[in-house]
């Protein structure tokens, strides 16, 4: 198999877009193509992968990959739209990797994007919940915040995680986002105000107890893009590509209640183990990680399942400040889903954009000094389809 790298990255500002989905995708794609020194036009990109979970439902537009190829004048490039829930982005990167590794193409454009703010928050929550089991879960009104609330309660009981630990994760990620110009939320909540102050029950109300507003990611629009290339063609590109060292993916039961241990995120563990094995690395080799913190508890739980901290100690690492920029293992330097935002299809790609920027030394105020290996974990369903990706700096 050929080695595969990332030659260019692009990212729109997450938040609320005022332009159609395909235009948002195109903005991110053009930035990535410029970054990679690749021009639009026939023959420059062999294949286009677009990740979007909601284009057909929320935006009434299907086959967005074909539309993007046309918008960017990339015909006759091959094109596919990828849907794998909130893990669509990393799945698209995986398929891009496979297309190049197999020798089927040399240059692939991977774009993830979503316009979610065309509907109310309630409708967006309902839409995301459609990935749950239709009879065993969705029919009973279960939503992702509801699952996350129950999961958090179990985690608290089992490992001693507190609401303050969750708030620490939130504040940390918002602080990171202040150094990321594409982050949706440019505001740092005050720890005391959101958790201890007597007004906290109103300014930071419970969404799905014990999760509060500041424990939950915002609903965002936006797109992120990568130009993938064969590493044997690195001389074509102005910047030395960052190598995709390992990819692992795993699934778990669709019905969460069927899991033997409900606090275990088995698919995260297996996906991470497969990615480490492919990369020939161990968790202790990771210098920076982007973990799918749609809810603050998930950053803690995923950090444990991915082997970055012992089980039940992720929150202790957060308390010690290990996961801040400047700490032992910075997590979600981009601001994470929590503060950077979570346009579903964009998220997995966006996480990898951040790791590329870190490994290139382009992360400015949030830079992790000397970072050589980075891990991204993109979490689909309530952990029933997870993709882990490891990037390594070459040379």
């Amino acid at each position, binding site marked *: 198999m050929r080695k595969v790298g990332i030659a260019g990255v692009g990212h729109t500002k997450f938040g609320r877009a005022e332009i159609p989905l395909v235009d948002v995708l195109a903005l991110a794609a053009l930035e990535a193509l410029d970054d990679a020194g690749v021009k639009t036009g026939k023959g420059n990109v062999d294949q286009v992968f677009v990740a979007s979970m909601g284009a057909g439902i929320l935006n009434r537009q299907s086959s967005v990959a074909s539309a993007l190829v046309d918008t960017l004048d990339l015909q006759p490039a091959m094109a596919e739209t990828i849907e794998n829930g909130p893990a669509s982005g990393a799945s698209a990167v995986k398929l891009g990797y496979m297309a190049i590794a197999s020798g089927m193409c040399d240059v692939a454009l991977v774009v993830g994007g979503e316009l979610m703010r065309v509907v*109310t928050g309630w409708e967006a929550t309902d839409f995301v919940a459609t990935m749950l089991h239709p009879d065993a879960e969705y029919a009973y009104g279960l939503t992702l915040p509801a699952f996350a609330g129950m999961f958090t309660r179990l985690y608290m009981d089992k490992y001693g995680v507190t609401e303050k630990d969750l708030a620490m994760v939130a504040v940390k990620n918002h602080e990171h986002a202040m150094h990321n110009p594409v982050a949706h939320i440019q505001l740092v909540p005050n720890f005391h105000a959101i958790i201890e102050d*007597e007004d906290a029950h109103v*300014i930071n109300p419970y969404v799905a107890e014990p999760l509060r507003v500041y424990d939950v990611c915002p609903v965002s629009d936006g797109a992120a893009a990568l130009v993938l290339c064969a590493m044997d063609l690195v001389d074509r590109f102005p910047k030395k590509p960052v190598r995709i060292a390992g990819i692992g993916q795993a699934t778990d039961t669709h019905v969460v209640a069927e899991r033997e241990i409900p606090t275990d995120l088995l698919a995260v563990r297996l996906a991470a183990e497969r990615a480490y094995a492919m990369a020939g690395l161990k968790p202790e080799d990771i210098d920076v990680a982007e973990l799918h913190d749609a809810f603050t508890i998930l950053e803690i739980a995923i950090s444990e399942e991915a082997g970055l901290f012992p089980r039940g100690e992720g929150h202790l690492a957060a308390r010690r400040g290990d996961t801040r920029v400047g700490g032992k293992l910075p997590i979600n330097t981009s601001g994470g889903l929590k503060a950077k935002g979570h346009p579903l299809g964009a998220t997995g790609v966006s996480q990898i954009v951040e790791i590329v920027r870190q490994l290139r030394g382009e992360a400015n105020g949030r830079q992790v000094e000397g970072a050589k290996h980075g891990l991204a974990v993109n979490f689909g369903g309530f952990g029933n389809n997870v993709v882990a990706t490891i990037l390594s700096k070459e040379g």
Partner: protein
Amino acid sequence: MIVDKLEQSLRPPELDMPPYPAKYITLASGEKMVVHQVGREDVPRLLEAVRPLVTVERDFYDIVAARLYAELLAYQRYRVKNEYVLAGTIDGVIVGIVNGRMVDADLGMSYHTVAIKRGLRIGAQLFAAKMEYHMDYLGQQEVLIVAESPIGYRRWMIEYELESRPDTWHELGGVPTHVLTKALWEKHKRMKCTGRRPVSPEMLEVARKLILPSEYPQIPGFKR
């Protein structure tokens, strides 16, 4: 000011309204927002604060700001009966304004809510303060409410579970009217309305400066 007979006949007779006691709220940023009632003498300052938003189409700021502007003028120049205005300030800077009026002893009429600073639920807190005034200080039984923006609809109609009364007339026009009843207020106020009293004289003095905002997130690059 000498009020001639014609002017006197143009002015509505006013009912006594107990004042809204100032309070402060700790926002998520840790900043303290003081909510206090402002008088006619403060209106020119508020007009300055509202004017830049009159051209902001996004989130219906233009409609809300233009109407609020007119309502502030009507209040200042005695062309509306029993209007009140509450301002939210942080370190004296105006971050939001709400207004409404007392129709009679039992009925309130909610006018507008404008949040200048965004992302801290300032609009939600000022709206709650307005409802608190109607229900807990004016002692009214119902407040008639309409929303011009989807944000307002979500924050008020849905979150407070307001009673829909499309056949009831609201002074802002044909927008379907919703009603906050005393029972709904009692149900929701604990989770919607907060703040502490009294506000220290020092804090209140700063709040009364009503400093104009130097930036508007709705208007990138705004310079006063």
